[in-house]
């Protein structure tokens, strides 16, 4: 393996000189969840740096948008962040609606939010599950996956797919809620909420788990903002900011929910545990939001009529949505034709990956695993 561009000068401590090892973690490594590569310089178990090398899943989604048109790009947004595809759908739909000045029916907005929050539950479940798996606990992972399956079933009833939903359309959603959906979702939430407590009993506050995560790779608030960490990673630093609440879109202003932040309850503020526990707490908040939406949902149509060949006026538009991995920026430039001139997606994982190099210095190899897992990096979101 060539290490072009990764030549370091070997640093020497006074005292006994030990050999510095260059470890190639990935692109196929069990804990990188997909294809990320880290060039790890380690002195025994202690790391000097871990330089991320990305692009192994660069699928040129942004370029494809220039070829398939506004409607045809919707399925591709599923693949930007396949773990929580709903919010990507929403981001694309919103940016197109903004660029073309389209209004969405109110029931459509509710459908979107229900789907998004269910998607967020699924995404966070996978995130905390794989995090525990990386720390070495297989059972909590399978329990999380089991619950995720149930969410998947719900989403499957809603839009016919388990992972790549393609649920939203520019101007609304493609399917209305199926009959009896509210009861199904409520039944799921009723059995799911106690399981969060069980999950906490099993793993979150387990001593070994806490010891593995507390005080590891803490990020300060200023650092997080400067590196543009978003979402749970930013809130883990104790900074209460959520696009849903602070730059509200859709029907979020009407909903009542908390924005959980890290408190440093077992270690330093902004450590891996804080990032983890924020996600656990957000699971509860998402449940709350879904329940409210199901109560408040009005009758009516869900999809506005939009031209088959959508041609937004010349100009550009940018929207931010709170995806599971945080603030996701969608930027589209229109040249007045039926194809987007340029699309840019700025994702949470992208900035999270850029901070790995900084945080990895001086921690142990096992901590690097915890760090990557706690940042909840999803490879295609980084590479797109």
């Amino acid at each position, binding site marked *: 393996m060539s290490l072009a561009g990764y030549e370091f000068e070997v640093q020497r*401590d006074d*005292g*006994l000189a030990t*050999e510095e090892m260059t470890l190639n973690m990935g692109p196929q490594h069990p804990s990188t969840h997909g294809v990320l590569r880290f060039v790890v310089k380690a*002195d025994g178990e*202690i790391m*000097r740096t871990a330089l991320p090398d990305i692009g192994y899943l660069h699928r040129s989604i942004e370029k494809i948008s220039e070829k398939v048109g506004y409607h045809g790009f919707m399925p591709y947004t599923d693949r930007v962040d396949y773990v929580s595809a709903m919010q990507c759908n929403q981001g694309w739909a919103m940016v197109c609606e903004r660029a073309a000045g389209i209004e969405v029916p109110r029931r459509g907005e509710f459908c979107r939010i229900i789907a998004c929050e269910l998607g967020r539950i699924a995404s966070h479940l996978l995130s905390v599950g794989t995090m525990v798996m990386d720390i070495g606990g297989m059972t909590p992972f399978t329990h999380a996956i089991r619950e995720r399956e149930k969410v998947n079933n719900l989403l499957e009833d809603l839009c016919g797919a388990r992972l790549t939903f393609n649920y939203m359309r520019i101007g609304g959603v493609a399917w209305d809620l199926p009959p009896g959906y509210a009861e199904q979702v409520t039944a799921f939430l009723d059995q799911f909420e106690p399981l969060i407590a069980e999950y906490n009993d099993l793993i979150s506050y387990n001593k070994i788990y806490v010891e593995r995560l507390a005080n590891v790779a803490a990020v300060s608030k200023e650092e997080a903002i400067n590196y543009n960490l978003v979402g749970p990673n930013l809130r883990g630093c104790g900074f209460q900011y959520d696009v849903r609440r602070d730059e509200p879109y859709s029907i979020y202003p009407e909903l009542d929910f908390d924005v959980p932040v890290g408190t440093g309850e077992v270690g330093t503020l902004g450590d891996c545990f804080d990032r983890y526990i924020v996600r656990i707490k957000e699971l509860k908040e998402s449940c709350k939001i879904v329940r409210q939406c199901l109560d408040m949902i009005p009758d009516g149509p869900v999809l506005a009529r939009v031209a088959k060949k959508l041609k937004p006026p010349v100009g550009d538009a940018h929207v931010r949505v709170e995806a599971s991995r945080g603030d996701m920026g969608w930027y589209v430039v229109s040249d007045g034709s039926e194809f987007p001139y340029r699309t840019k997606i700025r994702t949470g994982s992208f900035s999270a990956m850029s901070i790995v190099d900084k945080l990895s*210095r001086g921690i142990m190899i096992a901590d690097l695993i915890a760090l990557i897992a706690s940042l909840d990096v999803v490879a295609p979101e980084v590479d797109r």
Partner: protein
Amino acid sequence: MPLEALVFYLLAALTIGSALIVAGSHNLVYSAFALLGTFMGVAGLYALLAADFVAVIQVMLYIGGILVLILFAVMLTHRIADVEVSNRTVGRIPAALILGIVGTVMGVCIGAAEWVQHAEPVVEPTTSGIGEAFLGPYILPFELASVVLLVALIGAVVVSRKELRGPMVDG
């Protein structure tokens, strides 16, 4: 008994053969691993002499402790994996000289000694006997050895602490 003789020669061969590899191998890691054979052979010889406790302790301390530590030290040495010849043979002539002298002296001693032969080695637990001996007639050397080990232990701690205090990372 012939079987015992056979086992003895096998063990002796193992011990000496491994020792030769230790001394002669070009690869430092091979030398270290060959120590395993030597230690096992010696342990086997002890067992053959009905010194079961000593044999087990030999395995426990020399293989479990010392050999592993030596391997550690060898593996953490700089670039052990890359260098082909890590164990250069130096000073052949003095070595041969010393070997000759020692060999002669030992040969003379072996020839001159009066060997007491037991008809049969007595198989009985030796553990309590060794314990009694350590806390009885040999208490002073035993305690001295303990002190020496303690000093070595503290020394090791001091040496390793020094390294840890150095700057681990920049920034």
